[in-house]
């Protein structure tokens, strides 16, 4: 036996390595269980490298854009002042509307809570297997980030949710375009209700599932889909994407292709909403 092992030493090592990884894979069944300490450790050790790269790129980009942007700043400033004025008015009107339903004390507490619950963050890395699955961001448990918190883009569209592997300074976000994700959404009039998941066969797109071909609710290309909150994870009323096409060719369910508003290639800044549905509504 030892001579056999000696003769086939290389193959034995290869078999052991493969066996080790197969055991590792089998330990993760069923899918979706917590990551191992080993995986978390590897993530924690290498995440600072991504942090550094993201900062370096940002610095270079900043130097380049600052120079050119200087000339447009006045224009933008004027526009922002107008926008801020409009938002202040809108905010006042909304406060007045809410005032009818709640006491001053309740309202003030709610606004303070909402303000404090928004955690701004930046993307520092993307999924190394498939970019439309997940992101790494520069905020972690130290900043108050917890599993299942909703993540929005700068303009308030849904990006995804915080999933496992949260280190002190970094977290991972499951994107709406991941085919393992599931978001309860509805159309413009609050119906039809369906589950939105990433569409693996078309990068950066989603598919609205479980809408029966016999359903009377009509969705047309261009219609906006928003979250319902029924999944218990995502806050309700957040814009997710718009319908690109609707096909009724299949037997049971409609084939509805959706393009998310969130664009992975154009976003750098994100916002984590550190509140749960029950905290607001």
């Amino acid at each position, binding site marked *: 036996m030892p001579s056999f092992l000696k003769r086939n030493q*290389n193959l034995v*090592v*290869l078999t052991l*390595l*493969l066996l*080790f*990884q*197969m055991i*590792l*894979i089998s330990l*993760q069944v069923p*899918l979706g269980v917590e*990551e*191992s300490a*080993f*995986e978390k450790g*590897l*993530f924690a050790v*290498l995440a600072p*490298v*991504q942090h*550094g*790269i*993201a900062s370096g*790129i940002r610095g270079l980009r900043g130097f380049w854009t600052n120079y050119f942007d200087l000339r447009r700043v006045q224009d933008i400033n004027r526009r922002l002042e107008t926008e801020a004025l409009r938002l202040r008015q809108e905010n006042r009107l909304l406060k007045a509307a809410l005032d009818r339903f709640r006491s001053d004390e309740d309202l003030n507490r709610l606004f303070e809570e909402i303000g404090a619950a928004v955690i701004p963050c930046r993307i520092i*890395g*993307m*999924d*190394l*297997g*498939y*970019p*439309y*699955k*997940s992101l*790494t961001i520069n905020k972690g448990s130290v900043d108050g980030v917890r599993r299942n918190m909703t993540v929005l883009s700068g303009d308030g569209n849904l990006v995804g949710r915080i*999933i496992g592997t949260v280190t002190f300074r970094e977290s*991972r976000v*499951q994107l709406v375009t*991941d*085919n*393992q994700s599931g978001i309860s959404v509805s159309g413009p009039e609050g119906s039809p209700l369906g589950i939105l998941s990433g569409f*693996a*066969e*078309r*990068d950066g797109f989603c598919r609205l599932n479980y809408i029966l071909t016999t359903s009377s609710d009509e969705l047309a290309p261009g219609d906006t889909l928003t979250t319902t909150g029924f999944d218990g994870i995502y806050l309700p009323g957040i814009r997710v994407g718009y319908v690109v096409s609707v096909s009724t060719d299949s037997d049971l369910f409609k084939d509805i292709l959706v393009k998310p508003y969130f664009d*992975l*290639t154009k976003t750098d800044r994100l916002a984590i909403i550190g509140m749960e549905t029950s905290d607001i509504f």
Partner: protein
Amino acid sequence: MRRIVEAGLAAVLAFALYSLLMRISITLPILLNVFSLTVVYFAVREGEIFGAVFGMACGMIQDAFSLGVFGVAGIAKTLTGYLAGAVSRRIDITPLSRNLVFHSLLFSMELLVWMLLYGLIFRQPVSMGRGLIFFQPFMTALAASALFKFLVRWNTRRMGRS
């Protein structure tokens, strides 16, 4: 010990380059697999066992930063590292055309194993990157052959000087 440190640094460098490519354009990492390139380089230089262990390490780094099952890329890269080391000991891969074919076959096999394992575990189709993923073996092989040629020339020049 030196080669382990070198390999460790190369893995971190590959990770940094991969992250950088992704920040430049989402399609770049689909076309060029920097980790596979690093694995094959060390496997050819150090042999099949080193290649297999280093392949496993690089695959696990890739898996740790990817949403999915930890170990899928690891298995594919372990096989790549082992085969690269074993085959390069038996045939001369110095001529450019042979080198290109060797790398293309190796990376195609890796992609195939990864897709099979992914399909088997998730029971879902693999994201194809609008078909770009099928160019990955050839593009990575082109980069590997160019790197190989550059290193051969560089080593020859260095030997000539000394």
